[in-house]
């Protein structure tokens, strides 16, 4: 498919001079070794001359030659091959794909294809085939470790859960840090819609239940290529929306001239938790060594010490205590994923088509968790009249999830805490087989209010969603004159989502039962009209100018009903609820833009591009809603002008500057009162209006920006170099960039004594400076090829706030933990720290032997210092083995799960020193005030010692988030076409493989969990917090790909 895209370009750039003075004709067909299909547009040239011809749509060519000459077959992204003519009259050639050249042509902003050598900014391209090699059902997650400077974090191990992607560090202190997603010219929605419910303080969307972000709907099997526009210059034409970069996705198309190809692929995958906590297996539940069934912990007696006695278990039976070392492991099951995809494509000289269907069925690592996704795509282009082309694409995706687990806190259904608090004496099987008693009521884990049986939660309390999404585009392109093309791309992305969550009567924390349903509707309409002028002024000098207008509208609406107090058990009907709370929200944002893009090229090695765009946004005050921003970039292939050197095959310098403006969310300008549905009361359900027969309305919590609000701006400078040595055996691509976002529109937390919680203002600058290096090596290149790709990215993030603002809360967490910004620092994690003396020793309270604490201290930055990736690919004939390592260095993370395991006395480390005298390392005040002496005071008990690791003591649960991971590995075998043609002629290609993702956490500094989770999810600038998240998974599977 990529070939087709490139054909047009080849015709443009290739100088095919008149064929003359040859004495005979050679014909032949050029095919690709990768798929055995003919390649149109291959340059067939006589070595040492300018004589050449391209292959036609069927890969066929005819050329006049003389004996003794050599033909050179070259094609972008394939290794050039030379064949001596000799006396042959038919020369058929199979070209081998060259992965190191894949980024030669990329689709950039507004769907404009450009040669990478002409670009003055850094882009990265990922082929569709690379993301389906070891597939992740979420296409965002599949990018992890693939591109330098692109950081992907997973929200949880929930099916369909979110993945957040950040390019070159967070450019914003507010929620919006993710790049724009564009499919076939259409800007699509990638939100992770959150909704608050009456029965939970934690918004359902990412934090409570992870419903994922909507880029996860994109079907990897339909993707031809993804281009990652990293910097502002690359994305400048998209304006405001792409201030965090853009990911341009081109979907697969049929080939003109292909009578019809059917391709089929099937993957089966098995998922299991990547990391499970390490538990102690010596102590039962209780308090200070005394057994108590009311406790869900490990602070009871040593099991071996009480073998002569019996104790009540959760069923009320008196039993001898025994540890079940695998009880948590047994709780999780193997999740299964089946992805089956079929596509039919083809075309004639007038048009092309492709129809694809992919079915995904997943079951989770917790029982009852399920996801079913059906994706249908259609893409067709047609030449209606000479010079008038139309293309439409239409995609329908239906995603159904159920049994999604609750995370974080403040909800009866939170699963991970329940599971990780299971005493060691609890037999998971007994728990499952007896989750209800003879009367059908819950057999709770404890008689206390913290003891839901996890199987009761999973079997009865279901949370899920149905999302129906349609997106598509229509594109018209008319070539008015050879130098002027008018085109229009219109598209829409619409989805309806229905969410439902039920809590059965008898669930502790919600004994009277409840449920909610929500209908979400999201729509984007996007139109771009472009006029493209392209003219060679002289033979060496080309001008290309694009002028365009754009309109964009984003609309969201939600209706939700919360039902509390159910009469008939398990009947989730509003009429069965004692109270129903309806609520509705909607918002709309519009942006209009006009833009121009001028590209000058000289002799095909010097390229200057300048763009300008003016946006008008509905979200800013009408006096400040227009903003203009320019960009300029320069690409210079210097190897074209310096004397040729054998060792240096390609060299290019690039430089760019861009300025991008930014608007804000809707409705942040006017002061307006909100009708209230409910007021808050801690622990209780709160009260719904009407209350005592009257309604209520409330002043907003946020002071709006009023007419002072103006657009924020981002300035970005970038320098890059691209070098290829020794016939492309070594490739180096390096960038330095500096981005500064000024006048950020932020929601500044106010002291609440003002009567408000936030104020919308322009305040704060954020600078990101960094380098990105991609190094490619081909140490061995023969029938056996070894290809190494190394990626490295370092980013430094610095915040500057106005002097009157102490700090800015990026994301408030729980229990004294916040993600904040302070002048001169990077965005960091703040919370309670151990108190230390000047020498850095922890100060111990001599009264208790426990550590003293200080509040609101910086614990470290949340972003990594650098990330690195390494991909090794070994190929021998049709066999290919590839694996990717992914590393992160620096940054910190907080884990609530670790806190739970330690304070509960369940983590393996808590078994040490129990019953012994333990003196913590630190100092106590000396006799002279202000001096300290080494601590001599023992802790009263290890239970007391570990109680210091409660979530409120942030430092106790904060770790270095560095890790090294075996991100993916795959082994595939392409059955040689010779074998196929012998045994099954109708088959064009057959490939089988095994694949694995997230296979091995090689190094981590965080105990008990995978350090790579982010509770705040994709919709937030906050990172570095794990909060009872569902464990991430390791996947292993196999796949078959067949084309005929």
């Amino acid at each position: 498919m990529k070939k087709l895209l490139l054909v047009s370009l080849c015709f443009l750039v290739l100088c095919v001079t008149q064929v003359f003075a040859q004495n005979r004709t050679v014909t032949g067909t050029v095919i690709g070794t990768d798929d055995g299909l003919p390649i149109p547009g291959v340059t067939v040239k006589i070595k040492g001359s300018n004589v050449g011809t391209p292959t036609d749509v069927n890969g066929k060519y005819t050329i006049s030659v003389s004996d003794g000459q050599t033909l050179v077959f070259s094609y972008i992204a394939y290794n050039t091959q030379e064949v001596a003519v000799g006396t042959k009259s038919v020369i058929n050639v199979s070209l081998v794909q060259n992965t190191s050249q894949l980024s030669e042509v990329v689709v950039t902003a507004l769907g404009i294809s450009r040669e990478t050598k002409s670009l003055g900014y850094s882009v990265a391209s990922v082929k569709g085939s690379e993301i389906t090699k070891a597939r992740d059902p979420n296409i965002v997650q599949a990018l992890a470790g693939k591109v330098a400077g692109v950081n992907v974090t997973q929200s949880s191990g929930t099916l369909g859960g979110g993945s957040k992607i950040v390019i070159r560090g967070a450019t914003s202190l507010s929620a919006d840090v993710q790049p724009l997603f564009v499919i076939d010219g259409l800007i699509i929605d990638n939100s992770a819609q959150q909704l608050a419910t009456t029965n939970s303080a934690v918004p359902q969307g990412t934090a409570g239940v992870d419903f994922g972000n909507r880029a996860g709907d994109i079907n990897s099997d339909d993707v031809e290529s993804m281009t990652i526009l990293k910097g502002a210059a690359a994305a400048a034409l998209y304006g405001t929306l792409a201030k965090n970069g853009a990911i341009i996705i081109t979907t697969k198309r049929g080939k003109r001239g292909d009578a019809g190809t059917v391709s089929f692929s099937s993957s089966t995958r098995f998922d299991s938790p990547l990391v499970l906590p390490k538990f102690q297996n010596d102590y039962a539940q209780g308090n200070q060594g005394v057994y108590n069934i009311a406790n869900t912990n490990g602070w009871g007696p040593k099991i071996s010490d009480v073998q002569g006695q019996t104790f009540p278990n959760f069923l009320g039976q008196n039993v001898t205590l025994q540890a079940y070392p695998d009880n948590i492991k047994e709780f999780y099951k193997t999740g299964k994923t089946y992805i089956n995809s079929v596509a039919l494509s083809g075309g004639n000289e007038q048009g092309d088509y492709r129809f694809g269907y992919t079915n995904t069925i997943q079951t989770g690592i917790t029982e009852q968790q399920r996801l079913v996704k059906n994706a249908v795509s259609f893409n067709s282009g047609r030449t209606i009249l000479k010079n008038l082309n139309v293309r439409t694409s239409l995609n329908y995706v239906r995603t159904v999830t159920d049994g999604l687990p609750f995370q974080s806190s403040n909800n009866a259904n939170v699963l991970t805490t329940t599971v990780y608090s299971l005493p060691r004496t609890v037999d998971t099987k007994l728990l499952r087989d007896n989750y209800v008693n003879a009367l059908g009521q819950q057999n709770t884990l404890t008689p206390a209010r913290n003891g839901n049986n996890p199987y009761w939660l999973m079997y009865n309390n279901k949370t899920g969603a149905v999302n129906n999404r349609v997106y598509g585009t229509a594109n018209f392109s008319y070539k008015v004159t050879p130098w002027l093309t008018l085109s229009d791309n219109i598209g829409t992305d619409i989805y309806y989502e229905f969410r439902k969550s039920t809590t059965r009567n008898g669930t502790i924390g919600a004994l009277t039962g409840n449920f909610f349903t929500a209908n979400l509707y999201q729509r984007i309409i996007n139109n771009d009209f472009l006029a493209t002028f392209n003219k060679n002024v002289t033979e060496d000098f080309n001008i290309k100018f694009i002028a365009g207008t754009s309109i964009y509208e984003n609309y969201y609406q939600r209706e939700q009903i919360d039902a509390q107090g159910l009469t008939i058990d398990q009947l989730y009907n509003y009429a069965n609820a004692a109270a129903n709370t309806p609520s509705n929200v909607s918002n709309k944002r519009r942006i209009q833009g006009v833009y121009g893009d001028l590209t000058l090229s000289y002799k095909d090695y010097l390229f200057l591009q300048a763009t300008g765009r003016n946006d008008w946004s509905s979200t800013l005050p009408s006096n400040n809603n227009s903003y203009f921003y320019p960009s300029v970039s320069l690409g210079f292939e210097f190897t074209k002008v310096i004397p040729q050197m054998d060792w240096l095959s390609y060299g290019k310098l690039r430089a760019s500057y861009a300025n991008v403006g930014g608007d804000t969310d809707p409705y942040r300008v006017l002061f307006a009162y909100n009708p209230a549905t409910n007021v808050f009361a801690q622990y209780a359900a709160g009260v719904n209006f009407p209350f005592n027969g009257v309604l209520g309305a409330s002043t907003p919590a946020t002071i709006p920006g009023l007419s002072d609000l103006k657009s924020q701006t981002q300035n970005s400078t970038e320098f890059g170099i691209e070098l290829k040595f020794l016939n492309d055996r070594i490739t180096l691509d390096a960038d330095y960039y500096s981005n500064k976002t000024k006048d950020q529109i932020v929601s500044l937390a106010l002291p609440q004594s003002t009567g408000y919680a936030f104020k919308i203002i322009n305040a704060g600058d954020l600078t990101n400076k960094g380098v990105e290096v991609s190094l490619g090596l081909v140490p061995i290149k023969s029938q056996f090829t070894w290809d190494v790709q190394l990626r490295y990215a370092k980013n430094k993030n610095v915040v500057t706030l106005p002097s009157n603002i102490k700090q800015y809360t990026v994301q408030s967490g729980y229990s004294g933990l916040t993600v904040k910004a302070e002048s001169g620092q990077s965005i960091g994690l703040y919370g309670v720290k151990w108190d230390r003396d000047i020498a850095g020793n922890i100060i111990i309270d001599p009264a208790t032997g426990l550590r003293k604490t200080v509040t609101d201290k910086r614990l470290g930055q949340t972003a990594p210092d650098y990330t690195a990736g390494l991909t090794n690919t070994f190929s021998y004939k049709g066999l290919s083995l590839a694996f990717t390592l992914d590393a992160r260095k620096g940054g910190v993370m907080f884990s609530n799960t670790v806190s739970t395991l330690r304070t509960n006395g369940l983590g393996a480390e808590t078994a040490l020193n129990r019953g012994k005298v333990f003196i913590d390392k630190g100092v106590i005040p000396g006799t002279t005030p202000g001096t300290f002496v080494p601590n001599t005071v023992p802790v009263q008990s290890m239970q007391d010692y570990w109680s210091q690791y409660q979530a409120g003591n942030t430092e106790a649960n904060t770790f270095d988030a560095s890790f090294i991971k075996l991100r993916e590995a795959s082994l595939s075998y392409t059955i040689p076409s010779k074998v196929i043609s012998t045994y099954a002629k109708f088959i064009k290609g057959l490939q089988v493989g095994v694949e694995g993702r997230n296979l091995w956490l090689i190094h981590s500094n965080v105990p008990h969990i995978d350090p790579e989770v982010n509770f705040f999810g994709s919709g937030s600038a906050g990172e570095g917090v794990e909060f009872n998240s569902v464990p991430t998974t390791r996947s292993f599977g196999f796949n078959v790909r067949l084309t005929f």
Partner: protein
Amino acid sequence: MKKKLLFTFSVLTLILSLPSCKKYLDINRNPNAATTLDPKLLFSYAVTSYVNLRPSGDLGMPMVLAGQTMADGYNNPTGFAGGVQTEGEYRFDPLIFGNPWRSYYTSVGNNLQQAIGLAEAATPKNVNVAARAKVLLALVYYELTTVYGDVPYAEAFKSNIPYPKFDSQQAVLNGVITTLDAALAQFDETSTIKIAAYDMFYKDDIAKWKKVAKSLKLRTYLLMYDKDPSVATKIGELMTAGGMVSSAADNMFVPFEDVQQKKNPKYDIGERYNGKQNFFFAIKWVTDFMNPMADPRLPKFYDIPAGQTDYIGIEQGTDGDDDVNPRVSTTLQSAAQPEVIYTYEDQLFYEAEIYARGIGVTQDVARANTLLKSAVKESCLFYKVDATTATTFSSGLPTYVAGASGPTSIVYNIHYQHWLDMFDRGLDAFTEWRRSGPAGSEVPALTLPVGAPSNGLFRRYEYPISNEINQNPNAPALIKYYEKMWFDL
């Protein structure tokens, strides 16, 4: 054909690309919010938030536990603690300190401020909504300062002052008086603007509002008196002028409803978490005082375990035994139980104290005895003891003589009776206890709960870190929960 296509294409493009810019972009008005409204809606929201905050897990429950009017039953699986240390043992989650601050200043206070602004800007002025909102605002200031000490007052609630300075407690309490005086001056009993049910306290009975406003002034001066005896004159003036709360019909309260999502939080948490069982146990400070007198309020306060005859309260931090120890009555803490702000017995207890101590009036112990008996009788009636028993019991109380000290003194008994009358109003009882005597001589003489850190008794909420301290450069340093505030000697 080609021309037709080109024409269609151009027209379509123009239509889609170039709509009228100004109108097209003029959509930044939230269709689900109102730029103006009747201030009664803000008033009702503020009141609802206020009466939900007071009994909630953020304020009422921590206060009854840390203030020791109820016990958490420590290791009892269905007690409030459930085996985990709670506010009863002085384990405070930072949210507990932060949420009331947020509610008082934003959902309650700021809505009252906005209601006052809208009511006073209306034509004609809606004076009674403004004045009622001021009485509530005075309660907000009073409770904020009794919970946290020095708090922003003069510069609070101003959208143009981003970092309000903190005022001394004395200044805040004087501000409470100023605010109540402003309300009293503004009330107009002849106004025809009615808000009916939107006045959840007195249903437009402005006379009752004026009475309670005066009583709240009295309570505020009494809080200040021991630190600033100069307010005695003001107390004397109020006593002379009268016109304060004078019968149970004047009580200030808002009822809850026995309807899902409209229930009193104290009842609701038992229903949601505990199979409708009450979480709270009787505490010995209450039962030990009431038992010897066979107080008829005991069966109204508590549900006694089957087979038990004695009301045996426990110490805070010790295990509640369901066979022995009573829990707080589910008849009392019912779904529809009103949230009470001020009662007639409060008024009588204060008046008894004023005469017993001779604050701004001539000391009159006989009158104090009479007032104390009336107060106890009103308290019995409030807790639904029948009238005959209430009269018999209260008139049978000892008559205290002047000059005695300690448990036989009239002042001690007034304080103790007033404190236990408020056992279900956590913050009010806690404030009453702190003002009942200098540190170490409060009534009753509480001791440190079992398992609590040895720093001293609970005396305040700490300033909230994330809601205020971190955001406000004018905020003072953190003050620990065991440190005293201005009025607390």
